[in-house]
């Protein structure tokens, strides 16, 4: 069981690092999705460990939320691209201080 | 009831003045001020000397926090109230035209804010609930802020901001102590802000000290005391003299008033614990104020700094814990109010004539305007504590008390008198005597109105200089009580 947890932790960390280091909004976004799925993995693993279904149900809901986030996120990122011709989060620098 | 009326009158007056057409605004304002004066006198007549807290009224305000709307006056409060109600109309008359001067926000605003300030100050002097006190204590800042920022010389905006920041800082620090008191009372099982309830608590040593620090810093900033006095000179320099009078003669008294009410009244042990430090600070303020005053070139700055020295005396008097000291301090609060008001107003008239506040650029006024020069001289001598003028009495009491406390303290205080005499006379000499300024229009002398404004102050100075008993009669019982609370027996009031 612990292997799953470790794996999910690793995935989560990868996603986390990705978010912090990558510059392409889409990639950042994908990293976030990776984090969510790491959470799913952890939930399912724990559900198995505790022998109840809460975790699996949660995984379902997380999927829904992830889907919603994808939709909204893509919408926002698209608008930015079409305005800026670039997906780099570094270019998004009008707002500072 | 009368106290509520006393507070509401100027408050309503402020609102009315703000809405009536500018033409009549000044008259309306003055009318309300006069009405307040009358109310104040009525209150004084209803006051029975020696019965402690009187004319009290108490209503629950915020139940779940144990806050009350509670008013009442004792000797100290009464004197402050009277001082306030008397000075405000005088300031209004003095500022009659000045507020309309170009660059100012207009007499209407000036009168409205002044009345607002009066209302809040009266509330401060009569509040007997700590939170109510705190609320109005902070509330006085708003009108004061707009008075300083809206009227006077260039750079007043900065001065106003500086003033407000200092005061807010003090206020917030005090807030911590206020809440602290509340929490203590809550732990004691009866959450309340009423001074009467809080005085009943016995607070353990360390807590007392923390709370004391909070209160004292706030009041030291207010009063002002070295080292947190720096806002004072800037403010008096930039603001109109009328504003300065309101600030220095009324608002700053809240500081010393608070020390008596809260530091001594609620935290006696801590007060005694802190005495050495406070006395040192007081002495520094006395000497430092006097010395810096000597060096000043700007009349208004100079006067401002003299009051730093005077507040030093007052605090000294309070913290030597003797009947002489306390009585002297309280008496000093009144006298200083009168004397400094006189100084500021005269200086104001002077500046309006010479068009400058720089001592260097003045001179030879006494030939052209003997009356003005006379008033100026009296004011200066009063500040210097010349016998026969009321500050002398209070100063003497304080110094005697100081010697009783410790000869060093006393002698330092005496030194201050010398310095005071020096700056007062030297200022007079530089401004009034000597050659006339080159190529300047001769200074017109005071007109009848201005004399009329100054006269009552002068009379008060002389009257209380020779016969301070009426004041002392009011003061002594209070001193007796407060000293008793500190745990020092009464060894006969000063005669």
């Amino acid at each position: 069981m612990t292997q799953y947890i470790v794996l999910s932790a690793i995935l989560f960390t990868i996603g986390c690092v990705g978010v912090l280091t990558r510059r392409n909004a889409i990639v950042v976004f994908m990293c976030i999705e990776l984090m969510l799925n790491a959470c799913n993995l952890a939930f399912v693993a724990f559900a198995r460990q505790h022998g109840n279904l809460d975790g699996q149900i949660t995984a379902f809901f997380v999927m829904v939320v992830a889907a919603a986030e994808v939709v909204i996120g893509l919408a926002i990122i698209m608008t930015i691209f079409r305005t800026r011709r670039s997906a780099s989060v570094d270019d998004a620098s009008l707002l500072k201080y | 009831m009368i106290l509520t009326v006393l507070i509401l009158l100027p408050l309503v007056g402020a609102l009315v003045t703000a809405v009536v057409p500018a033409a009549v605004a000044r008259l309306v304002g003055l009318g309300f001020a006069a009405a307040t004066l009358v109310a104040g006198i009525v209150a004084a007549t209803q006051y029975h000397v020696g019965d402690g807290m009187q004319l009290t009224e108490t209503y629950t305000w915020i139940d779940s926090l144990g806050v009350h709307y509670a008013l009442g006056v004792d000797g100290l409060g009464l004197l402050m109230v009277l001082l306030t109600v008397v000075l405000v109309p005088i300031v209004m008359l003095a500022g009659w035209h000045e507020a309309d001067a170009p660059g100012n926000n207009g007499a209407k605003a000036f009168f409205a804010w002044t009345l607002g300030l009066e209302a809040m100050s009266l509330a401060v002097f009569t509040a007997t609930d700590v939170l109510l006190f705190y609320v109005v204590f902070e509330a006085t800042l708003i009108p004061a802020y707009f008075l300083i920022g809206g009227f006077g010389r260039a750079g007043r905006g900065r001065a106003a901001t500086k003033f407000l920041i200092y005061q807010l800082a003090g206020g917030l620090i005090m807030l911590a102590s206020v809440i602290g008191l509340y929490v203590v009372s809550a732990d004691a099982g009866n959450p309340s802000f009423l001074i009467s309830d809080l005085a009943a608590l016995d607070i353990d040593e360390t807590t007392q000290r923390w709370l004391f620090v909070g209160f004292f810093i706030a009041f030291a900033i207010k009063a002002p005391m070295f080292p947190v006095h720096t806002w004072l000179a800037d403010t008096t320099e930039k603001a109109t003299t009328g504003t300065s009078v309101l600030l220095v003669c009324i608002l700053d008294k809240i500081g010393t008033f608070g020390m008596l009410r809260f530091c001594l009244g609620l935290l006696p042990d801590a007060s005694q614990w802190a005495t050495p430090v406070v006395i040192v600070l007081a002495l520094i303020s006395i000497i430092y104020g006097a010395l810096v005053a000597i060096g000043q070139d700007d009349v208004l700055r100079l006067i401002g700094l003299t009051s730093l020295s005077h507040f030093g005396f007052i605090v000294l008097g309070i913290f030597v814990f003797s009947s002489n000291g306390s009585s002297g301090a309280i008496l000093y609060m009144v006298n200083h109010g009168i004397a400094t008001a006189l100084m500021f107003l005269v200086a104001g008239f002077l500046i309006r004539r010479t068009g400058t506040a720089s001592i260097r650029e003045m001179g030879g006024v006494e030939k052209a305007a003997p009356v003005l020069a006379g008033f100026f001289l009296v004011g200066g001598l009063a500040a210097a504590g010349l016998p026969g003028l009321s500050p002398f009495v209070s100063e003497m009491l304080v110094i005697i008390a100081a010697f009783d406390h410790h000869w060093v303290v006393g002698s330092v205080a005496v030194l201050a008198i010398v310095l005071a005499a020096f700056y007062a006379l030297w200022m007079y000499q530089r401004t009034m005597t000597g050659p006339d300024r080159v190529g300047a229009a001769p200074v017109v002398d005071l007109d009848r109105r201005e004399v009329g404004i100054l006269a009552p102050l002068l009379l008060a100075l002389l009257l209380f200089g020779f016969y301070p008993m009426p004041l002392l009669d009011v003061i002594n019982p209070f001193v007796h009580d407060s000293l008793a609370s500190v745990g020092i027996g009464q060894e006969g009031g000063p005669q």
Partner: protein
Amino acid sequence: MHLAPLAADLPDPGLAAFGQDPWWVILLKAVLIFLVLVLLTLFNIWFERRVVARMQHRVGPNVHGPFGLLQSLADGVKLALKEDIIPKSADKVVFLLAPIIATVPAFITWAVIPFGPVVNFFGHETPLQLTDMPVAVLFMLAIASIGIYGIVLGGWSSGSTYSLLGGLRSSAQMISYEVAMGLALVAVFLYAGSMSTSEIVAAQDRLWFGLILLPSFVIYMISMVGETNRAPFDLPEAEGELVGGFHTEYSSLKFALFFLAEYINLATVSAIATTLFLGGWAAPWGIENVWEGANSGYWPLLWFFGKLFCFIFLFVWLRGSLPRMRYDQFMALGWKILIPVSLAWIVAVATIRVISLEGNINRTYLVAAIAVLLVLTVVLMFVGDKGEKSGAATGEGAPAEADEPHDAYAGGFPVPPMPAGGAVRGGAAPLTFAQSRTTVTAAAEENHE
């Protein structure tokens, strides 16, 4: 949330027969399935060509072997001997990976297809089915959709306009029809009360779901054609528009793999249809009345493949007789008709089910529930396509955008660029349609200037 402890760990009784095989049986079965599929593919290709030829009054392949049966084998060998080209603009790794990704899932789906009942398999009692699980059908759908990756990656990595558009199109239409397909299956699960294929087959012993759930069946059949990119829905390979579609750039055996995958999928969807709607390996009714041995031993294989070939023939027939659809009509069919209808149908089925479960339910409750959905559906059908096209929801810019001169980004085509730092390798080098002479989709159109 207080939920029941997880009981699903141990396979439910229906699956008791599975997971008991020794390794050699498993291996043998797997190999058999593999062979069957390969042969089936070869046969299907030949079959299709013959039938289509007949429909067009031609003869079709008849040279190699009896009836030209070996034709497709010959083709395979020929393909193997063809030159293997990897375009220089292609992303090598993905380009090679894509056909594999496309092929493998096609095989795997068959792991859960039941060919028959428990039989004596070389002296070992085992069902004629590689394995089964509580979520078999879900598993099939999941694996099948992995195949889409193969196609879209193949299209993308070729580094060619046609391939990319072809890949996009096919993936778009596959996912669109996957929704309809998925919805069509819900009704089946509702009646079977399980997602394991063998249990579903068992549940149809009285009546085929294809009959009681006719609408689901029809929807499924339509969507399975779309799912496999077959005529009349073979737009990804629309020669007239897209040359070869996503596998334009592929040659030799890599192309063969895509071909193989496509035909296996053809068989797969047919097999699923058979299993879920036509009673799987069970003999058509009536037969076991006259001959009770029909559903035992290896005979069911006969029925199974019989039904399977009906579907195959249907596919061929469609191809032979129907013209290709236009893309917008095609998508409209999927999104605007199949989905709402199947949703409505699901609710209807559920309602009927409830009524049969508990006869005496207060109608108002029920009516209200149905009314909600009905109103919505009706309204939708009623207003139909008249919906104004403010780009708001589509994210597509207002018309004026197309004529921004030299704005490569005009026309609402926002898309993530390749990772920062530009293209790494060939095919990853970002595409553009800016100057392409092709006139495939309106999409490409708007890019011209």
